């Protein structure tokens, strides 16, 4: 794994850590979003674990979680949906950047996660974009 690729994986993992922190907060505050937040938390937890393994396998120290994250207002369901959609869109950007750095099965996996993340962003209310993660 070269330096550029390692950086991309780390940035992706840092955002997954933020997602793992965010969704329980949303689920705890808003009953209407509890089920969706729980599902998202499980998906992001799995991804976090997978990304930690990728970096560990490359003998790279994975970043750890922060105590908390500054995500903006979470005063209403609409706020929470906006924050979640925004985080998924930032994830799309980090994953899209990595697609061009990897090959073979690794690229296949990264593209698959980009697609799933884009759909998740839309499920939280993000408007469809022609090129998610590139703008």
């Amino acid at each position, binding site marked *: 794994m070269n330096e550029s690729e390692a950086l991309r994986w780390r940035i992706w993992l840092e955002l997954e850590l933020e997602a793992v922190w965010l969704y329980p907060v949303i689920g705890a505050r808003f009953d209407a979003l509890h089920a969706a937040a729980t599902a998202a938390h499980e998906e992001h937890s799995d991804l976090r674990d997978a990304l930690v393994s990728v970096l560990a396998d490359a003998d790279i120290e994975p970043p750890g979680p922060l105590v908390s994250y500054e995500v903006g207002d979470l005063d209403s369901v609409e706020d929470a949906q906006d924050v979640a959609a925004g985080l998924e869109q930032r994830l*799309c950007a980090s994953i899209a950047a990595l*697609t061009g*750095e990897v090959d073979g099965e690794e690229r296949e996996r990264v593209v698959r996660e*980009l697609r799933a993340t*884009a759909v998740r962003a839309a499920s939280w209310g993000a408007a*469809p974009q022609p*090129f*998610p*993660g*590139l703008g």
Partner: protein
Amino acid sequence: MTSRRVLLAGGIAAGAVVALGATGRLDDVVRGVGVKPRPRPVDADISLVRAVLSDQQRVLAIARGTAGAEDIAEVLEQHIAQLGGTPTTTAENGTLSAALSEAADHRAGDALAATSPDVVRVLASMAAGLDQLSATWEGA
């Protein structure tokens, strides 16, 4: 986070790949949009992006022939324009949800087959965009 400039560079780079078919001057075109050209076999990517354009035109035609899919068509037009094509004005019959889903799978496969990192990113992102359209349309 990827900046809009990178989006434009990536998109235009893909368009430049198409342009190469006519000009044979990929490096000049890519330099012109601020992307540092890298040595790479481009012939396969040129053919790939041409095939992508053709398939995207088919999906756009189906969207144009589907009532209530104007917003979908607008995004599909942007795909084609970013790849250097002219969006079709033809309308065709077809099942839009299936067309979007199939196109997303095809673009993902195309991203796996592409050589240039810029083209990989653009095609992978297109697949994700088509998935968003499919999810939105099915949820409408």
